[in-house]
């Protein structure tokens, strides 16, 4: 690796809405600067996880160092710090932005500014980043660069007269982007002689080397063999390995202020080197850490139970391993009379929850039953004690509680004008409180609502997408707790209360939810050899009831010639269906039933 002076370093990230072409642009930059040869190019190079490549989104961020000879003849080092593109990970986004001096704001020229982009631009502005607007997908027939530039100017107040028109896919405007980074993004301050402060913007667990920490050196310098201290956790380690990301790891001996790199120091868990923490030298520590560190708090909770009780220990091990790599994941053992042993897990949001579930099932081959997501309720008891309830079945009885408060979020939606009515109706039906409506450019509107988080973590996002035919986008952040008349709705299957199906709902919606829920369960639970009553109750009062008739016949009469393969296939299919069933008493309940409350009409 070439040694580089601070004045020739440029650190930048890319802000873009999902699908607006961030990954393609990053790939193109790596290719054009020769960082990655064409031969080694695979799509979405920075997105390492299979899940990311499949979904086309970035979950874990990555970084890449590029060497670039600019038109002025000088050699520059450009460090791209990639950011995750989802609301669940806005803290990580804020930390990677804090490690940069500039950002490319990539907006799809055929679409426009979206809610998530907006939220991230504000984060970038808070961090004093130089923002370079890029109008991407200029090659599309529907591209309207002038309209979208106008929109950026109007909404964000960013001068777009020099906005770069580009198509990452077609390789248009890439040189202009590289030149703008060199010219417009300020170089880092040369604080090489100050005590070391390096900001962690990502870390992951490697089974051979321990945690690999990605950081940006803000002040000072560090070398292989240095003993470093993580200022928030207080832990100290000796650096075994130091390097840069190109984007693959390349070892170096020393890094100085302005540079971006990684280190390995036999760190056992990412919780010891959390995103946002500051690294300093144990021998000559900096007086204060870099500001802005917080520990990510889970907002969404669910129960994870193995379908097969024998897999409980495997699940525990898998969660332990995942949490080595995921400081935001919380888990604690949960026992349910219906489900047996499992874990109550906390996540940053729904996507985070889905990712963890999928990884547990794919990478650890576990069969899991996931219960419907819940939020954390703040319950004040009669005796004045305040308890936090993340599991509806544990809600204290009405006679023991004074009040229940639930988390609220402010939801900002950006939508084409024609869907405003439908989205307002949706927000209203989810107990939303209207806050604001602003007309942006050319028929685009922002809508702001305060909504109970519990209503948002159900299918709000899917509903918003379907009601706006995919055009609306949203962003939300926590604004505090509010007192509401909430009740616990229990579900009884075959006379037994099934804890994981219990849900906390607003009193006014309890009857409706109870009725819809038992109907849905009737659809989802397969017939058994006996009749199964399904009831919803509040306390001892049954508010809705249905029953699943008994299965009387399950037989294949026809066995054609000696060809047993068809019958066997049918049985194998039927057997496969049993895989996802959880035995609750004598009733086999499929996974979907535990999510039924999210699928009510």
């Amino acid at each position: 690796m070439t040694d580089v002076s601070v004045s020739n370093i440029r650190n930048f990230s890319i802000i873009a809405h999902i699908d607006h072409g961030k990954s393609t642009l990053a790939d193109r930059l790596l290719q054009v600067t020769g960082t990655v040869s064409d031969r080694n190019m695979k799509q979405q190079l920075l997105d390492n996880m299979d899940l990311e490549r499949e979904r086309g989104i970035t979950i874990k961020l990555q970084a890449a160092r590029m060497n670039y000879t600019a038109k002025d003849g000088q050699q520059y080092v450009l460090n791209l710090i990639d950011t995750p593109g989802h609301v669940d990970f806005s803290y990580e986004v804020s930390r990677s932005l804090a490690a940069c001096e500039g950002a490319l704001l990539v907006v799809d020229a055929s679409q426009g500014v979206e809610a998530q982009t907006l939220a991230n631009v504000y984060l970038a502005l808070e961090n004093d980043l130089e923002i370079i607007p890029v109008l991407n997908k200029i090659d599309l027939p529907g591209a309207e660069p002038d309209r979208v530039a106008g929109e950026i100017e109007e909404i964000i107040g960013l001068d777009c007269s020099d906005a770069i028109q580009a198509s990452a896919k077609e390789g248009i405007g890439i040189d202009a982007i590289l030149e703008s980074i060199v010219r417009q993004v300020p170089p880092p301050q040369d604080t090489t002689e100050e005590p070391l402060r390096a900001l962690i913007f990502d870390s992951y667990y490697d089974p051979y080397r321990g945690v690999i920490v990605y950081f940006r050196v803000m002040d000072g310098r560090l070398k292989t063999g240095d003993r470093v201290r993580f200022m928030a956790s207080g832990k100290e380690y000796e650096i075994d390995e130091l390097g840069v990301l190109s984007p693959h790891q390349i070892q170096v001996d020393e890094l100085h202020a302005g540079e971006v790199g990684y280190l390995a120091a036999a760190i056992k868990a990412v919780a010891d080197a959390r995103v946002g923490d500051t690294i300093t030298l144990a021998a000559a520590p900096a007086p204060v850490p870099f500001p802005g560190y917080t520990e990510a708090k889970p907002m969404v909770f669910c129960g994870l139970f193995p379908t097969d009780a024998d897999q409980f220990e495997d699940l525990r091990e898998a969660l332990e391993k995942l949490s080595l790599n995921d400081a935001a994941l919380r888990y604690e053992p949960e026992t349910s009379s219906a489900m047996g042993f499992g874990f109550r897990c906390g996540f940053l949001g729904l996507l985070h929850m889905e990712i963890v579930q999928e990884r547990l099932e794919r990478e650890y081959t576990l069969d899991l039953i996931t219960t419907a997501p819940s939020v954390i309720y703040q319950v004040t008891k009669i005796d004045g004690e305040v308890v936090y309830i993340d599991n509806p079945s544990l809600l204290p009885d009405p006679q023991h509680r004074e009040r229940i408060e639930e988390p609220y979020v402010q939801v900002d939606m950006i939508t084409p004008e024609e869907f405003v009515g439908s989205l307002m109706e949706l927000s209203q039906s989810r107990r939303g409180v209207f806050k604001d409506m602003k007309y942006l450019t050319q028929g685009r509107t922002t809508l702001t609502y305060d909504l109970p988080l519990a209503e948002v973590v159900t299918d709000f996002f899917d509903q918003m997408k379907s009601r706006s035919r995919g055009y609306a986008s949203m962003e939300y952040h926590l604004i505090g707790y509010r007192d509401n008349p909430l009740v616990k709705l229990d579900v009884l299957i075959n006379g037994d209360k099934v804890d994981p199906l219990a849900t906390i709902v607003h009193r006014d919606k309890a009857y409706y939810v109870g009725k819809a829920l038992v109907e849905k369960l009737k659809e989802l639970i397969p017939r058994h050899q006996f009749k199964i009553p399904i009831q919803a109750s509040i306390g001892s009062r049954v508010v809705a009831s249905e029953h699943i008739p008994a299965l009387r016949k399950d037989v294949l009469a026809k066995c054609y010639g000696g060809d047993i393969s068809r019958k066997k296939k049918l049985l194998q299919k039927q057997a496969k269906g049993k895989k996802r069933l959880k035995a609750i008493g004598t009733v086999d309940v499929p996974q979907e039933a535990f999510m039924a409350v999210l699928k009510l009409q």
Partner: protein
Amino acid sequence: MTVLPLPASSDRPSIHPLGNEKKADLATSGPAAAAPTAAYLHIPFCRRRCFYCDFPISVVGDARWGDRSCTICAYVQQLCQEIAQTPAHSEAFPMTRPLETVFFGGGTPSLLSVGQLEQILAALRQQFGIAASAEVSMEMDPGTFDLAQVQGYAAAGITRVSLGAQAFQSELLAVCGRTHTADDIPQAVALLRQAGIENVSLDLISGLPGLTMAQWHESLERAIALNPTHLSIYDLTIEPGTVFGKRYTSGEAPLPSDDATTEMYRQAHQHLTTAGYDHYEISNYAKPGYACRHNRVYWENRPYYAMGMAAASYVQGQRFTRPSTREAYYAWLASGALIDCAPTPLMEQLLDTLMLGLRLREGLSVAALRNQFGDETVHRLVEGLHAYVRQGLVQIDSGDRLHLTVPDGFLLSNTVLAHLFHLFS
């Protein structure tokens, strides 16, 4: 290929109603390794396609049957060629053993002329031999044959006929797209008896569109009145891609409800057992000694040859299904009739054994299972069935015979089997 002279009529095997058929040797290497003594011949031609049928067949129409049809002629030639190419012995079973059972299935095998049938049987005798006591079955449809033809069949060696009666109401037969009427059924039985074929089985289908319980009773009673040796009772399955598949949804009118077809199954059990038939398999009933010996080969998971388009054989542990169109079948024959599939692994053999064996009222021998699959597997099996034993669907008699109960266990056999498949996969 060689066409052998016709066998003399004295060679014609007589009916041998056997009570408990002699089991094939349960060699330590499993029953699949023994030499097959059963052969299935697929005759994939029908005058028209019944509305519920999704079997691999060719519709030849009314005018094109008998030996004038070159389509059928050509097929019989190819079929005989396959027989001649099928090894009758191998390293695994050095001794050729004569066939104990032969089954002509279809399609409508009664579209074969007597000459064509003789040709096929001659090829079998030449290649494997046919035991004097063999059961030689043929599926026939009422209204597709006359006396001369069945006399010819009987002379050629047919000992048992399975007659596709399906229903005793002409209007229901018409709804199914069948070519015969209710009156054709007793007539067909009479013709068979006149030709000396006493071992006659009738097929009935329950759950047909619009079938009432009264009509079902009528069908059962009229079938019993004809005094067949054997009855097969099938519950209509709606297959996608069939005329019925397009017209009807299972369990919805005009199809009888699931509760109604369950009742039809129970009524059949009631009527037929009262009339002296043994409910010896999920969909089969027989007078004592008249259980279908050929089908028992399948249910006991013993090996069998199979020849013809789409036919499935089980020889030396290999389950192989032939190509399901005539063109592909001929091409496969021309390229050497290669059976290139892996032998059934032990775990699959277990699933096959369970799936097939539990169709029989007598079920499976725990000792034999232990012998073939080991103590641990049998332990898991018995443990896995515990809940069903408690529910009265499964019984283990005198510590050895593991079987479904009749009719409760039979009715929920898939529930039990799917559980076992889940357990062992």
